[in-house]
């Protein structure tokens, strides 16, 4: 009975979201306030029903209701309860429910937090969100019903959640990522509403901006968590694979980052309007594209859900209506926006423009490279794959250019930067960062690798620039601390965001350049000397978990004769899902990780293992955290609080 309730809730929510998409738009067309006023209550009620459906699905998992096909394939009785809950979004159907729950949740948040916005704008924004929601509700209802029953023979037990997903990282990764993807729907809705109503000024940007920032923060955290998860859970220590699904999350992030920055120009200087609207549409378009790529099976990937061309067609249809529709609207309406901005080449605007161009170009390149195998195959060129080095070579130069632009851009004022001796100061900064960066690379052990040196120089460059910006704020002031305290949170947000970027650059450059690995064959009592560590292999012990058994290797790690730590890499066998998993043993420090993973047992009884040292790998994820903190600070800015 309860699953049927869930299905009814979904059906009701579908109808309601359709109404919530249609009525306010009609109300706006006829300028009929009562009809426009239905947007908020309808949005809230829709969210309520989707929330109910979601709760019922969670309940079905918690009580092991194996009469539901989705529960059968995603769960098993022995699965710990927190994984049962996360198993709800471990597969296609449930993750779609989570997706629509979040989309409607964003809608509800807009409805609740928008009291100061003009009613017609809010109604149209909510209508657009609800129309997108309606499309996805139909998708769930017609192709991916999570409440489908297995009748009449109900299985005794389920098949267990994919062991890869039985992990804290994966409990959180999809919700964060979806919050980000779906959050861009708000910016999208604001953009489409601006195109429909023609209301588009700096007040518009001030409303749209915090929503974009929050979505961006979620997406940043989601991507970082996904990378961290891949790093320790896939068992072999890679942190970015240029896998199509990873790319699918990176592309909206890049465009979203561009959008955040161009919104700043639109808000402060009332410029880049057409461009901002286009970016808002594209950020969400890339999010939808991600959904499409993951779920249609056009591209294959480790992360891909069930490949189902029919579902793919449906999402492609949604993508066409949403994106192509809004871009057509854009083509028809965008010439109404009046750009009235003029700025000098040495100004914040022009550097934000550079930032935007570089980010959009890199998103475009990633798209082209991701889709290249598909296009190549369609043209009869046969199967190809594009290796990670190719992606790196294409993206790294742009990324470093961007970092150098950050160093200048964050110092500049709007419109025209007037400061005596600024050019000279830049030159000094450049010389200083080249000397220091090069020296740093030399000290780390390699002064000849171009990537390492350029990365180190770019890091020093941004650090110097940050130092100068702070100095500039407090120079000559009597009470320096008070001056710093009085700075806007958004200023700190900018600083944090940029510091996060260079932390990621540092992590990426150093781990790529200085990581070491060896594959070894081990018998009990073996000692391996590697990268200054002394590993004593003490043998294998047998460990049993709730739904797995494992061979756990025991490694005592010594450095300079002293025991540093003991690592327990595992080869885990999930008994219900019948899958083998490599669980790495990791000693994590701020400045390096020691990473041991077990291979396989040879016929002689010996084991193979891979030992790796990964310097500064933590900076990748810490950098992303600092960046997100920057985003949060930007939202906390006083001018946004006033409107609520």
């Amino acid at each position: 009975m309860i699953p049927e309730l869930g299905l009814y809730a979904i059906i009701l929510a579908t109808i309601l979201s359709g109404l919530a998409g249609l009525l306010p738009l009609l109300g706006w067309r006829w300028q009929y306030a009562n009809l426009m006023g239905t947007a908020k209550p309808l949005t809230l009620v829709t969210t309520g029903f989707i929330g109910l459906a979601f709760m019922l699905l969670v309940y079905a998992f918690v009580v092991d209701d194996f009469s539901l096909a989705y529960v059968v394939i995603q769960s098993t009785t022995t699965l710990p309860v927190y994984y049962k809950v996360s198993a709800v979004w471990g597969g296609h159907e449930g993750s779609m429910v989570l997706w629509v729950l979040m989309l409607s949740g964003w809608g509800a948040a807009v409805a609740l937090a928008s009291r100061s916005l003009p009613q017609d704008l809010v109604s149209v924004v909510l209508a657009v969100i609800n129309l997108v929601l309606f499309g996805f509700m139909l998708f769930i209802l017609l192709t991916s019903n999570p409440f489908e029953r297995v009748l009449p023979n109900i299985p005794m037990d389920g098949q267990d959640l994919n062991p890869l997903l039985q992990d804290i990282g994966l409990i959180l990764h999809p919700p964060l990522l979806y919050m980000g993807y779906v959050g861009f729907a708000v910016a999208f809705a604001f953009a489409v509403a601006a195109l429909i109503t023609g209301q588009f000024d700096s007040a518009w940007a001030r409303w749209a901006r915090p929503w974009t920032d929050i979505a961006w923060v979620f997406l940043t955290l989601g991507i970082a968590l996904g990378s961290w998860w891949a790093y320790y859970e896939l068992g072999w220590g890679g942190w970015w694979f240029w896998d199509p699904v990873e790319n699918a999350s990176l592309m909206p992030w890049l465009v979203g980052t561009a959008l955040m920055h161009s919104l700043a120009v639109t808000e402060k200087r009332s410029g880049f309007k057409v461009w901002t609207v286009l970016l808002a549409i594209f950020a969400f378009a890339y999010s939808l594209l991600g959904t499409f790529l993951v779920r249609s099976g056009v591209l294959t990937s480790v992360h891909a859900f069930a490949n189902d061309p029919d579902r793919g067609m449906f999402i492609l249809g949604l993508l066409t209506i949403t994106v192509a529709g809004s871009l057509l609207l854009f083509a028809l309406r965008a010439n109404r926006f009046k750009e009235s901005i003029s700025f000098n080449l040495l100004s914040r605007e022009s550097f934000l423009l550079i930032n935007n161009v570089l980010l959009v170009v890199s998103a475009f390149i990633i798209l082209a490279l991701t889709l290249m195998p598909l296009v190549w195959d369609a043209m009869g060129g046969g199967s190809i794959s594009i290796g990670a080095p190719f992606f790196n070579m294409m993206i790294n130069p742009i990324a470093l250019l961007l970092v150098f632009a950050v160093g200048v851009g964050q110092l500049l004022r709007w419109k025209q930067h007037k400061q005596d001796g600024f050019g000279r100061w830049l030159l000094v900064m450049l010389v200083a960062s080249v000397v220091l960066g090069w020296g740093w690379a030399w000290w780390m052990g390699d002064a000849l690798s171009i990537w390492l040196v350029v990365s180190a120089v770019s890091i020093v460059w941004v650090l110097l620039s940050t130092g100068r910006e702070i100095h500039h704020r407090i120079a000559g002031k009597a009470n320096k601390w008070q001056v710093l305290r009085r700075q806007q949170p958004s200023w700190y947000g900018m600083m944090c965001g940029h510091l996060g970027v260079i932390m990621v650059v540092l992590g990426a450059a150093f781990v790529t350049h200085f990581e070491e690995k060896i594959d070894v064959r081990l018998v009990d009592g073996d000692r391996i000397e590697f990268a200054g560590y002394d590993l004593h292999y003490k043998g294998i012990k047998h460990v049993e978990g709730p739904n797995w058994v494992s061979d756990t290797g025991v490694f005592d790690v010594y450095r300079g004769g002293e025991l540093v730590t003991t690592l327990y890499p595992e080869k885990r066998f999930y008994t219900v899902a019948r899958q083998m998993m490599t669980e790495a043993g990791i000693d994590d420090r701020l400045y390096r990780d020691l990473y041991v993973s077990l291979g396989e047992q040879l016929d002689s009884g010996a084991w193979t293992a891979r030992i790796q040292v990964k310097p500064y790998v933590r900076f990748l994820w810490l950098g992303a955290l600092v960046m997100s903190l920057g985003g949060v600070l930007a939202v906390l800015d006083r001018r946004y609080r006033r409107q609520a």
Partner: protein
Amino acid sequence: MKKVWLLLPFTFVFALIVVFFFALRDETDSSILESALLNQPLPERPLKLLDGDEMINLAEVAQDGPFLLNIWGTWCPACRTEHPVLNELAAQGIRIVGVNYKDEPLAAKKWLIELHNPYFLNVEDPIGNYGLDLGVYGAPETYFIDGQGIIRHRVVGEVTRTMWREELQSIWESL
């Protein structure tokens, strides 16, 4: 002049969507499968029954009418998904012969007790020899065998309710 520029993003996205459309359509096409053994008689090889020591030749089973030959194993997650569907088909009176492929007989028996047994007959193929004869790639696979012991259709991957309803039922009825 300016309007033409504004159409650029739309054109770009539209082109992309067209590419996706064709890629997806190809995807749908490639799931239509042909077998080298299609319209050929079942390969002859005596196989041991899962229950008991008797040896049997599957071609003889066809003498009593058409049946489905299902390749399965307890190690195969997709087989578990497929199992309830087989149960339903068996309940409709459809004869299903199971080939327990590269599996442990004990695990297989346990599975059949726990998940209900849709097979009226089960044979063992412990090292996959019969699978090789048939050209099985993996489990599950299902072959449609007519009354003369000829393979008339083959499904690679799991049989779903939708597939049965939309396509397979009519094939079965035509046997």
